[in-house]
């Protein structure tokens, strides 16, 4: 088993508007599931149902109020895609900074840089400062770096919503390739057609609780 999430709960203190007392608000409550090698899980749920919080807890950015996450293997987050990028650095410099953040060795990146830059389609702008990149270009660069990592687990938070259609298709193809080579994926996704084409399981979050996990 690659990943097991056991009874994760996360509460925030909110002030009750009527009584003025601080009350715990449960963003996640008793969420448990397991992920096997090669699984691709779609995480669905309405806004505010706890999808992003769950991904952040899995990638240990946020500490859960209670519960455990056990991970065996490497994990690559695709949460906010441009996080860690800085406008005053060039594309190449940002690539190295970003890689170091998600744990890719400099040597490894050097070997794959051409491939990564090609995939992102930014070869011409590699030594230009990021401030003149479009949002799409930044997203493509980040996705390209992470997806060339071949992680054991990939967490993707609505990333396919970025970029143009052409790049979305490229992303989808890349994710399918990753899945074929053994990467397990958890993605936040609302597009049912897309879910059916790549995911083998769906997790539905409702008000922080996992609803019937095999509803489809």
């Amino acid at each position, binding site marked *: 088993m690659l990943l097991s999430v056991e009874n994760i709960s996360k509460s*925030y203190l909110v002030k009750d508007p009527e009584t003025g007392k601080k009350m715990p608000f449960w963003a996640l409550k008793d969420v448990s599931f397991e992920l096997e090698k090669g699984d691709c899980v779609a995480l669905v749920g309405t806004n505010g149902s706890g999808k992003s919080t769950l991904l*952040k807890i899995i*990638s*240990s*950015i*946020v*500490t859960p109020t209670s519960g455990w996450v056990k991970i065996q293997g490497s994990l690559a*987050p695709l*949460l*906010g895609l*441009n*996080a*860690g990028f*800085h406008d*005053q*650095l060039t594309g190449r*410099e940002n690539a*190295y*900074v970003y890689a*170091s*953040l*998600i*744990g890719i*060795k*400099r040597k490894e990146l050097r070997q794959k840089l051409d491939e990564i830059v090609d995939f992102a389609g930014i070869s011409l702008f590699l030594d230009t400062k990021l401030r003149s990149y479009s949002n799409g270009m930044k997203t493509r660069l980040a996705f390209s770096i992470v997806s060339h990592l071949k992680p054991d687990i990939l967490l993707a938070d609505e990333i396919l919503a970025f970029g143009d259609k052409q790049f979305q298709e490229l992303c989808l193809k890349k994710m399918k390739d990753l899945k074929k080579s053994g990467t397990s994926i958890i993605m936040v996704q609302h597009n049912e057609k897309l879910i059916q084409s790549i995911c083998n399981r769906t997790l539905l979050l409702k008000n922080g609780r996992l609803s019937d996990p095999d509803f489809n």
Partner: protein
Amino acid sequence: METLRSIRKYSEFFWTFTWRNIRLQYNNFWFGLFWGVMQPLLMSAIFYIALNNSVGVNIPQYFIYIYSGFIFWSVFSGSLSQAYVCFLQNDDMIKQIYFPRFLLPITFLAGKLPDLLIALVILMVTLVISGVDIQVGWFLIYSFLSLIQLLLVSIGSNLLFSVICVRYRGFQVVYPFMSQAIFFTSSILYNVSLSIENEWIRPIFEFNPISTILYTFRLGIFPEDGQLVKVVLFTLYAMVICALGYIWFKSEDKNLIDRL
């Protein structure tokens, strides 16, 4: 243990971010280095001109005295002034990618170390030129000890104030005052042990972390001015500051993201 393991795993991250900080602050690595070396020199020159005939009268080799002070001060305050706001400034990244967060405030200290080494070389040249009679062995031992103290104190303060600043945003307004308070209550410009007569206040000034570091370092240049016992005490003191900063940081680290 977990801390040590993550240091090894993320060592490339550490150095890449050290480089990134320098790159972002100065846009040009060499200018950054140049300015890092020039700033304490210029400050020492200004204060030497201003104070040599008043405060400086009782201190032999006053320029060397304050220059040694500024070398350590510029590393300490230069790194702290960037580190204490680092989580607020990089909140985007911290909310979305996991990495051992305690490394980030420390990268700012690492970025100042090249300046420090060059400045120490300049100081040694100054020592030779002005003909101060130093015993090289003791000088090196005390320099080494004071560097260790500086690293410990700096790591502790960077960690401590980086999380304090997340919890209490108002700290950003207090910081400039705090920085100046530390500066003027330390032995950078004058010898606190000799100048402060009040017996209650003197120990407070003497235990200003910067004073303790300078006490140790200057003992290598002016060996008759102090006792070895105090150096040992001050080294332990620096360890306590470092441990305190780390423990405080760890207790805040758990909920850091919820506060950003």
